[in-house]
């Protein structure tokens, strides 16, 4: 744990940091772009449309929910080139520092269309065309990250893109056909842009350029008429900066903070961006091999992939968590630190007994995740304290985990409620330990203490389950809102416990429960 071994020397370095960098640079179509002074909360979409006159990227919602603004960002991630689809509408421009950007205009090579574009055209996959550039870019991201994809994978990759005209069938067809077109490309015709994943060695020139860009020092610090943006490049620098600016807004993926600006028109005087703190970008198993540790800069997508290696039971939650562009930008720790009562990560993480590491200045402490949430939007956070990492216990023998999310739409929707159950039975088929946690049932993600207590030590049978279902009514007094009524939330919370009971035998024998999504017609 040398990471948290805070030597005075490191702190000293941060304090003595050389003069900061006042501009930033990213690459677009082979050119280096250094934007002029602008408010640091300028969105990438705004910059593309209003400053670069690139009108192909569209605004459909300005909240990262429709995908019309999808662009692809490439960066070096642990020395590997990584392509990610992101929503330009809520991405603040300075977060592009040191990255490569691709927009729909980047794909065409002279008069010839990119295989993605040609496939979209040939499959009649556009009608009004307004969403089309976003679909093209989400497919382009898939093309650059997977050497092949089946229909389900294509559909999942497009979960963040709304189309109101086509009914999607031709777009899914295009997702398959783009690979056929790619396979037909002569190798001499392959370029950095049209080569699908795995068909061509990584472009060294690009990697080198990115290396140079990403290593630019010193740390970025922008000041636009008093509005500040800091991008510290070390954990100590971050801790120090936050102490100096305790009212600053911490920015990771920006998938929520972006909306404060685009929707609430809030003025954010100071932003501290975590994206350059590589010390926070780690996924590891601790030395005792008891827990998985995920740093604050790990994206939701990478974080869930790490979780899934140990907890394949969370597959459905992963697929249904927001959309690929949101999972590519947002971070797992950001989801936790944001602390929304309907955040989807917390029920499972609390059921698993996760803890978080908090840091303020040089002070560091560890807290059980469930103790972090005090009340609606109230967290146990001290001044200038931030979440460094989440620690998730590794699976224990005999433990059964189930997480269920309920929403109007299967994919890319916010939970009406989300439930997680972790059960260990003893040799007498009695409950040795059970943890039940719900999102969407209270002002915070919350354990069902009364239900847990009614089950603990009791035989694992239907009678006990029905009592526990009744006990849930003592645990929660849910609200009615646009996602669900209070009565529905309570009824389904109870039924999900019953469902867990009914499926438990299958789950513990590691047979997957009937996956609704995979059902086929009669």
């Amino acid at each position, binding site marked *: 744990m040398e990471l948290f071994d805070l030597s005075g020397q490191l702190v000293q370095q941060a304090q003595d940091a050389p003069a900061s960098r006042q501009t930033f640079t990213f690459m677009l179509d082979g050119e280096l772009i250094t934007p002029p002074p602008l408010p640091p909360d300028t969105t990438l979409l705004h910059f593309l449309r209003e400053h670069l006159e690139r009108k192909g990227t569209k605004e459909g919602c300005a909240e990262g929910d429709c995908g019309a603004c999808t662009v692809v960002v490439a960066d070096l991630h642990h020395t590997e080139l990584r392509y990610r689809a992101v929503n330009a509408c809520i991405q603040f421009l300075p977060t592009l520092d040191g990255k490569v950007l691709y927009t729909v205009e980047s794909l065409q090579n002279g008069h010839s269309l990119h295989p993605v574009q040609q496939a979209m055209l040939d499959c009649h996959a556009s009608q009004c065309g307004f969403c089309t550039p976003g679909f093209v870019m989400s497919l382009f991201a898939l093309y650059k990250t997977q050497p092949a994809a089946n229909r389900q994978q294509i559909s999942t990759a497009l979960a963040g893109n709304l189309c109101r005209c086509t009914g999607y069938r031709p777009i899914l067809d295009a997702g398959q056909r783009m690979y056929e077109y790619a396979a037909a490309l002569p190798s001499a015709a392959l370029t950095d842009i049209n080569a699908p994943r795995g068909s061509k060695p990584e472009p060294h020139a690009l990697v080198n350029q990115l290396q140079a860009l990403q290593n630019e020092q010193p740390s970025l610090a922008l000041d636009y008429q008093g509005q500040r943006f800091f991008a510290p490049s070390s954990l100590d620098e971050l801790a120090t900066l936050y102490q100096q600016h305790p009212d600053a807004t911490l920015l990771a993926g920006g998938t929520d903070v972006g909306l404060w600006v685009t929707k609430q028109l809030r003025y954010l005087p100071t932003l501290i961006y975590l994206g350059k703190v590589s010390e926070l970008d780690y996924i590891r198993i601790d030395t005792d091999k008891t827990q998985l540790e995920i740093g604050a800069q790990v994206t939701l997508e990478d974080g869930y992939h790490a979780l899934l290696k140990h907890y394949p039971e969370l597959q459905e939650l992963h697929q249904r968590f927001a959309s690929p562009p949101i999972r590519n930008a947002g971070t797992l720790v950001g989801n936790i630190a944001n602390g929304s009562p309907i955040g989807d990560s917390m029920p499972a993480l609390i059921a698993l007994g996760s803890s978080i590491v908090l840091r303020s200045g040089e002070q560091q402490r560890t807290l059980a995740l469930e103790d972090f949430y005090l009340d609606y939007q109230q967290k146990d956070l001290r001044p200038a304290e931030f979440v460094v990492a989440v620690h998730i216990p590794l699976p224990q023998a005999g433990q059964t985990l189930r997480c269920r999310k*309920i*929403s109007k739409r299967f994919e890319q929707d916010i939970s009406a409620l989300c439930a997680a159950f972790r059960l260990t039975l003893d040799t007498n088929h009695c409950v040795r330990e059970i943890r039940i946690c719900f999102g969407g049932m209270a002002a915070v993600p919350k354990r069902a203490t009364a239900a847990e207590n009614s089950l603990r030590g009791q035989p694992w049978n239907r009678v006990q389950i029905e009592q526990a279902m009744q006990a849930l009514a003592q645990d929660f007094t849910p609200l009615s809102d646009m996602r669900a009524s209070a009565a529905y939330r309570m009824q389904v919370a109870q039924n999900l416990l019953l469902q867990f009971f009914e499926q438990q035998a299958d789950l513990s024998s590691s047979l997957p429960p009937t996956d609704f999504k995979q059902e086929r017609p009669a």
Partner: protein
Amino acid sequence: MSATLGKPIKHDSGHLHVTGHARYTDDLPEPKNTLYAAIGLSPHAHANILSINLERVRQAEGVVAVITAADIPGVNHLGGPAQDEPVFATSSVGYIGQSIFAVAATSMGAARRAVRLADIEYEVLPHNLDIRSAVAQASFVLPTKTLSRGKPTQAIEHAPHQLSGQFELGGQDQFYLEGMIAFAQPREQGDMLIYNSTQHPHHDQIVVAAVLNRMQKDIVIECRRMGGGFGGKESQASLFAAIAALLADKTQRPVKLRLDRDEDMTITGKRHCFDIRYQVGFDQHGMIQGVKLDYASRCGISADLSGPVNDRTMFHADNAYYLEHIDIISYRAKTHSQSNTAFRGFGGPQGMMAIEYVLDDIARHLQLDPLAVRRINFYARAEDVHHLHPEQSPTNSASAKQRSTTPYGMPVTDNIIQRIVDELEISADYQQRRAAIIEFNRHNRYQKRGIALTPVKFGISFTATFFNQAGALIHIYNDGSVQLNHGGLEMGQGLYTKVAQVVAEELQIDLKQIRCTATRTDKVPNASATAASSGSDLNGMAALDAARKLRQRLSDFAADTYATRRDAITFKNGEVIVGDKARLRFAELVHAAWLNRVSLSATGFYKTPKIHYDPATMTGRPFYYFAYGAAVSEVIIDTLTGENKLLRTDILHDVGQSLNPALDIGQIEGGFIQGAGWLTTEALVWNEAGKLMTHAPSTYKIPVAGDIPPEFNVKLLENNINPEHTIYRSKAVGEPPLMLAMSVFFALRDAVASVADYRLNPRLHAPATPEAILNALTALSPQNSTSSQDAPTA
């Protein structure tokens, strides 16, 4: 064999779409003194305005102009017969989102921040969004209408069986991906050009002229394409054109008004939601003897298009069924909410949902296959009607005639629903799968499947007869290239492509020689909305008329030049063959004609024949013809949570003789999925204060790619032509496929009914969200089943 007609030609903008080069209104270059607008909205559902103080707005950074109703040089309303929609509210507000003032500023951000600084004092008044409360208080935007035939009361009383019921049918936001936007540019002498994302430029032209106190000649509206319309931009785009024009006129600078998504959904109207009640009498086979349908819709604060929308509900109360004794009543409730408006189907879907619900209930009551009950009630087949009445005019004698006239007195002489349903039943394995599903449900405790086959018969034409006209303008340049313009709007449906196919066919030239130009009110005047599925029917015919005139002139010129008979001249594959005397390229003939001073520009015009309709009696022939289709959907539900999934859909749809099968399939699939969204996930929720809480994609859930059925078989009905002389015997396809999605709702209802062994009728409301499904299941559970017919709704 035609080079273009009936071929899967790509959308004319497809290449621009995929490269990002298609220009929408917000993508047009901006003159450098452009200002940006935002609208100040009412935060109250119902209130008197006591005072308006906009001083802080005026002082805000970047603000150049602030306008209220007092700044309007002309009238402060958006036209229409009722004149009940102000541009800016003055003394009172009637919904959350109503416009009160507007700002032009040097940036979009400055304008949007400034409007939040208004100091407006209100006296808050009681508000109502409930449909039946409005009906009880006689709060209506328009008078109640009724349509009756026969003796429904007696027929119901004397029938062997009776049922009654009620259900709620939610509305739907259009959710076009491109939100409302208008970009007004003052020119000279009061002349104003407005780029608007609109389905009805002429309507916007009328409104803007009236608001600015000018004449229509002074206003030009242009729209090359919309990023979707779906009816939402038929009437309501005019408000934004008017506000942009007012600000542009006041500042004499270009003004762009682009709505944020939340503003768009908060301000604009949606598909009407309904409360529907019925009484029905029927025999032991399920044949309806008499039916009473009570439709009450939430129209919102003003009439807008609620009159024709609700009329179309009444006209589609029959769907594909002959209803001899019928009583339809239609209440148009005034509520303190967005003024509901056009949305694909235009009231028709709600009309049909009622009778489908009734038939579904009858089938379960009689323990019959719902398909058998639907079948027995169908209108007479076209061939039977024609056999008896070859002149297509029904008489009083035969039974086929008796089963071939709509409640509004229009003979149904083109009915092919039996053929469609018969073919679909087999191709979709309906009977086998239904048996397998019943078996599955016996053996699965928590997961249940359902299946339903539902038909569609949809009337094509604007019910306002005068709208059924169209104009086109074609220029041939002396290099043989062609500019094509018409009054129709491109919103994704491929209208420009289809009309270009018509012109290419008529002139026998390559599509590449034709450029479709933006729809503008100064090219084709007085054009109707692109709506009512009529785009290709009307504009295709108008363009055909113009192309024929030009072809005629070129033929005349060639005949004169080569001293041959006109009928010896043929246009073929880019060439003109002048009998055995000459063979010219089209461009050569055009160039020669130009040198010889032949006019190479022509207008075309079309008006739909045969239609007539008396709004006072609601009788006549409002529709030129009907479009037909049917769908089978299979679903699965989880009875513990109400979660559900569409597993398979089979569609067989009638587009007559297709102009372009790729575009037609696109309309069918897209319409079906949009309809499935309406009936499943797309719940609109207003809170107690009357605020729409589902005003963005984060809260309002339209289908995504993962929601489409994994097995999705869509076919056009083959060997099929429109018996009416439409454009190349095709049929309209914009709206009818949306209603194919009724099959999804009734499949869900079938799955729900399985938990009570199909003996009880579930009270399932639309949209069938997981919560609605769970509520319907709960009401069927043994402890609640006795009250299942009148359980309170959540």
